[in-house]
């Protein structure tokens, strides 16, 4: 039987790693707990005005009310649906346009100044325009989301496509590859990481677009809850919604990370 016990140094190293990991998780939870505990305490002792800044216990009861009435699912569902539609559409349409620009260098040169102007324009300025053109509803909010994420996607994806190793393109050409084959077999797979990064950026941008859109026009959604809450001065509702929003956005980002992991596993390689 070979001796399978690791060396003493190895054991010490592993113990150290475990201790560090434990400390990191412990401190993370500790900070969260401390933050909420002192918030609650300060509110109870009257150091801060719970009517203005709310408190964890008031937020919890607000949350439970939202849950029981079913409003929570309506609002979270509406916002999540708008965000997911917005960022899938933004990534997809952006990638398609980036492919067209890669395909025709001439087109890309013609459109360059338009992309520069659209990229620097604060897209929120278009919000009222969309409402007038598309109408007050989810379609306007999704348009808002698209406006925010589309141009960045186009620019990032196009730059990624252009950065494809010219030697690999040369190899493809000597094998007799058509432009379509170069796109499908080289440029797109080589830019898998670019695409995942675009998705990651777009999740964040889409939330900005959705909340922005819901501020302007909506009858449901987390942005609507925040605006409604602040107008009727229900700060408990506002603060609870902000926390729900933080959780939803983080969860969605985590989903992209899972998707990335699954895709990489499926492709068998870390690109």
């Amino acid at each position, binding site marked *: 039987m070979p001796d399978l016990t690791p060396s003493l140094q190895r054991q010490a190293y592993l113990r150290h790693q475990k201790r560090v990991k434990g400390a990191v998780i412990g401190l993370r939870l500790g900070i969260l707990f401390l933050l909420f505990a002192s918030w609650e305490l300060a509110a109870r002792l009257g150091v801060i005005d719970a009517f203005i800044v709310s408190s964890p216990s008031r937020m919890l009861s607000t949350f439970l009310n939202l849950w029981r009435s079913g409003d929570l699912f309506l609002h979270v569902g509406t916002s999540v649906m708008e965000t997911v539609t917005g960022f899938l559409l933004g990534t997809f349409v952006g990638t398609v346009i980036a492919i067209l620009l890669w395909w025709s260098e001439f087109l890309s040169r013609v459109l360059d100044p338009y992309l520069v102007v659209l990229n620097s324009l604060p897209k929120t300025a278009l919000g009222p325009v969309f409402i007038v053109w598309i109408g007050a509803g989810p379609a306007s909010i999704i348009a808002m989301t698209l406006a925010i994420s589309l141009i960045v996607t186009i620019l990032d994806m196009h730059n990624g496509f252009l950065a494809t190793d010219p*030697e690999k393109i040369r190899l493809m050409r000597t094998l*007799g*590859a058509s432009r379509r084959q170069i796109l499908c*077999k080289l440029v797109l*797979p080589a830019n898998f990481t670019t695409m995942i990064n675009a998705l990651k950026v777009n999740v964040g941008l889409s939330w900005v677009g959705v909340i922005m859109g819901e501020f302007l026009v909506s009858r449901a959604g987390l942005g609507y809850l925040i605006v409604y809450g602040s107008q009727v001065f229900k700060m408990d509702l506002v603060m609870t919604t902000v926390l729900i929003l933080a959780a939803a956005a983080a969860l969605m980002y985590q989903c992209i990370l899972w998707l990335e992991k699954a895709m990489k596993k499926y492709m068998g390689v870390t690109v």
Partner: protein
Amino acid sequence: MIVDLQHVKLTYQAPDGEVDAISDISFGIEEGEFVSLVGPSGCGKSTLLSTIAGLEPPSAGTISIDHEAVTAPSAKIGYMPQKDQLFPWRTIWANVTLGLEIQHQNTGERQAHAHELLERYGLAEFIQKTPAQLSGGMRQRCALIRTLATDPKILLLDEPFSALDYQTRLSVSADIYTIIRQEHKTALLVTHDISESISLSDRVVVLTHRPSRVKNIHTLDDLKDVPPLQRRDHPAFRTHFNEIWKELDAHA
């Protein structure tokens, strides 16, 4: 002559003027021959290779391969790039059959041929691995098999060993030499390494500075049938080396 270059001239049009890359190059390659192309850096060796591969047309002159004028990339030519350029997201098998896939030749017969090559050159057990899991020498061998899988008549080697360290380079170049000879392929190697060109080829074509012409063609008959690694110890090696060295001298 399986490859025949007649008065090939290449001029680029750049926004700030015309660039003469190649002024007048003529030479031929016999079937089964291994020819090296050496020249000072920036003399347009790789450009000439692109032209022979059909990637860019010559400004004047003609290039024919197997008695047909070259106008576009053809299946008769196999190109081996600098570095292996294996695609990291594809397995070894998918990399090796890339050419077949592109040329819509991914038939059972062709696949069997590719598999046979992998087996003959010791890579069969790695077909499901990814390029990152292989050593530099093995990757280079894969790159050659990817080129051989489409069964080209001529191999164009564009400094394929330049990215390898010295030790690996000697063994890999000997390795590649053996494979090319065994498969009875005609090869044109571009390199800036004089020793490499002498140790591998039947003839060495020396080019001048840009705009390049053929300065001299060395026939290495005295080294025929000597394997690459032994050639470096052969008395004739030094003589050829010095001659080519002088011809490449920038001040000559």
